[in-house]
């Protein structure tokens, strides 16, 4: 074992910094799932009848499904009756600004190092904070509503814009889509809703910080973003979670709809609790994210920086339906200790002259396993479709694994598809070179890793890129050689 491996070991023993539980009284249902629980969730949220019906249909369908086990991750069976499906803060204040928020909540955000106040000041960001399933702070709403933009929690959207929700919900990810999406459709607690009307460019980044708080509460976020003809919106999602003993299931669904000439940028910095160094207690993150480029010349970009979760199972995808539409996927997935990630994307080319780009950067440290799974499908009518995929893996230490599973299906002879893949290791000679210039091993690894991720980071909005760099450094802390 050389010196750099020893450093890997040392790094691997670091503690998760964001482990704390905020003391806000929660109102939660007993554990377990059945039709009554679903009706109760819907009732508590005062939803229209069609929504309740939709949830029930999803539930009934879910009962017929089997949990998927094709991904390259391993975990103990999940007992779906041992999960609490609804928890909401008891105090449910209506807030115009942060000063009115529960001081405990504000403190929680401060501990996260991303106080809303600072966020607002820094970037002019409207923050819709989803705290344990129910939104408690939504800002900038008025400024946005002047432009006809709706940005609120899914619950509010169901109260104030039910027709918009009804028109688009489940049109990209139907409730029959997959096991976790069906479960989410049945029990989703809250999430974000954004709607940008025809011809409007959303003047600010829309941002949500998610956070799991109540003990043993599965989180089932549902997010829907719609950009009408010629509209543009950039949406930021970020999250951290406190330490838990039992594994927590997180099964979110995100749907994006871009009509003619519309563009949606969706950026995620994900930092769910990864579990301790033996992998105990981390979040299971089974997410379905999909965007439909429905209109001509529409564009959807997914950018994600994944550092957390015990297990991540996530494939933000694009359905390129409109002619000339563009799909992009930029990803940094970092795993450490016992983390397992199976992530990637799907680019489904349906319209003519559709283009997609995939840049995936995997980083594995500790004893973690990091898999890239990407599908590029060119359908029969997709003339002149193009895809460029680049999948790089970086290994830190020699106990971790990186795997690449590209799936390519071409049904049209005019398609141009390019795939590049590399695997590299941070070499002891690189570390020594940097050491010899006075840079510690930790900082050396950071420099190399940041350099490696640059292509993805530069896709992120400025202030988010800074945060991503910080999170990555934190996840690397204790893990590198």
């Amino acid at each position: 074992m050389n010196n750099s491996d020893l450093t890997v070991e040392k790094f691997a023993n670091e503690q998760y910094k964001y482990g704390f539980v905020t003391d806000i009284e929660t109102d939660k249902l007993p554990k377990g799932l059945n039709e009554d629980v679903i009706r109760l969730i819907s009732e508590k949220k005062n939803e229209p009848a069609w929504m309740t019906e939709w949830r029930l249909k999803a539930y009934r369908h879910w009962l017929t499904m089997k949990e998927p086990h094709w991904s390259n991750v391993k975990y103990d069976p999940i007992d779906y009756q041992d999960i609490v499906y609804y928890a909401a803060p008891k105090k449910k204040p209506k807030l115009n600004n942060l000063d009115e928020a529960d001081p405990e909540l504000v403190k929680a955000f401060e501990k996260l190092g991303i106080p809303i106040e600072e966020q607002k000041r820094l970037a002019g960001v409207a923050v819709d904070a989803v705290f344990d399933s129910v939104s408690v702070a939504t800002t900038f709403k008025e400024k946005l509503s002047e432009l006809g933009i709706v940005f609120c929690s899914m619950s509010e959207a169901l109260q104030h814009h039910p027709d918009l929700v009804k028109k688009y919900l489940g049109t990209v990810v139907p409730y029959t889509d997959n096991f976790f999406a069906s479960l989410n459709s049945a029990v989703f607690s809250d999430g974000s809703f954004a709607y940008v009307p025809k011809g409007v460019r959303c003047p600010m980044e829309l941002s949500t910080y998610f956070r799991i708080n109540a003990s043993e509460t599965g989180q089932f976020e549902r997010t829907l973003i719609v950009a009408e003809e010629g509209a543009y919106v950039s949406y930021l999602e970020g999250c951290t979670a406190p330490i838990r003993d039992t594994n927590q299931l997180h099964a979110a669904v995100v749907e994006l709809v871009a009509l003619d000439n519309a563009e949606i940028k969706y950026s995620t910095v994900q930092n769910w609790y990864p579990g301790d160094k033996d992998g105990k207690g981390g979040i299971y993150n089974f997410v379905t994210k999909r965007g439909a480029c429905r209109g001509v010349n529409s564009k959807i970009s997914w950018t994600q920086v994944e550092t957390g979760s015990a297990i991540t199972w996530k494939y933000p995808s694009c359905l390129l339906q409109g002619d000339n539409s563009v799909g992009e996927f930029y990803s940094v997935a970092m795993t450490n200790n016992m983390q397992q990630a199976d992530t990637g994307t799907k680019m489904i080319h349906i319209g003519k002259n559709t283009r997609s780009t995939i840049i995936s950067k995997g980083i594995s440290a500790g004893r973690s396993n990091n898999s890239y799974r990407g599908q590029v499908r060119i359908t029969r009518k997709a003339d002149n479709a193009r895809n460029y995929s680049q999948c790089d893996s970086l290994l830190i230490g020699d106990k971790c694994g990186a795997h690449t599973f590209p799936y390519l299906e071409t049904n049209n002879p005019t398609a141009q598809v390019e795939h590049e893949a590399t695997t590299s290791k941070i070499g002891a000679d690189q570390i020594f070179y940097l050491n010899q210039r006075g840079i510690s091993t930790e900082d050396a690894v950071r420099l190399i890793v940041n350099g490696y991720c640059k292509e993805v980071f530069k896709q992120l909005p400025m202030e988010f890129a800074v945060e991503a760099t910080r999170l990555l450094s934190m996840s690397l802390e204790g893990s590198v050689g």
Partner: protein
Amino acid sequence: MLEIRNLHASIEAKEILRGIDLKVNVGEVHAIMGPNGSGKSTLANVLAGRPEYQVTAGEVIYEGKDLLAMAPEIRAREGVFLAFQYPVELPGVNNTTFLRAALNEAHKHRNQPEVSAGAFLAMLKKKIQLVEMPDTLLNRAVNEGFSGGEKKRNEILQMAVLEPRLAILDETDSGLDIDALRIVAGGVNKLRSKDNAIIVVTHYQRLLNYIVPDFVHVLYNGKIVKSGDKELALELEERGYDWAKDEEVAAR
């Protein structure tokens, strides 16, 4: 400034350095010559603290401190600099970012204020003139895709930025064309002062015409077999290493 006493070092259980004694005073330039595989790079790397080498005996005192007890990055911050025979490529790591990070580590170590990005760039502009390096190389990843000669210049640029107390140049002249050799050697000479010391490892007397050493040592099979002044280099050029070795054998 530097005193090496009876230094033995091995790699993968193979002994390479077999008892090195060397004393370097501040203000001096020492040249180390010797055939391929004699242990010159090993000596340089052991002084810099490369973890693959095991020191099996001996000691190294640097500025009154036990050099071998220090981690490599601490040695660097204390002013020990190694210009590598084969500089490593660092894909994605911006050369300027890297240089500034390195300088600031040294500053922090000496409780000096960090250098701001602006001040650093201004300083860098001057330093690159010293090695006549095109500034496009500053915006590229460290050594990535650099030609052999560009890598060597980049090493000396780093030396110019970090201003080490003790610089060890491991075959900085190899791979340089004649003009580049003159430029790089000129750069090193400008960095030479009464407050620092330089150890130059080279195969060629030619370099020593530019960087004139105070002492020349011949390393052979892990030992210094002969020491002298700059004339020794000329003599070696004429008579070859066998001559130096034979003298040692005769002396035994």
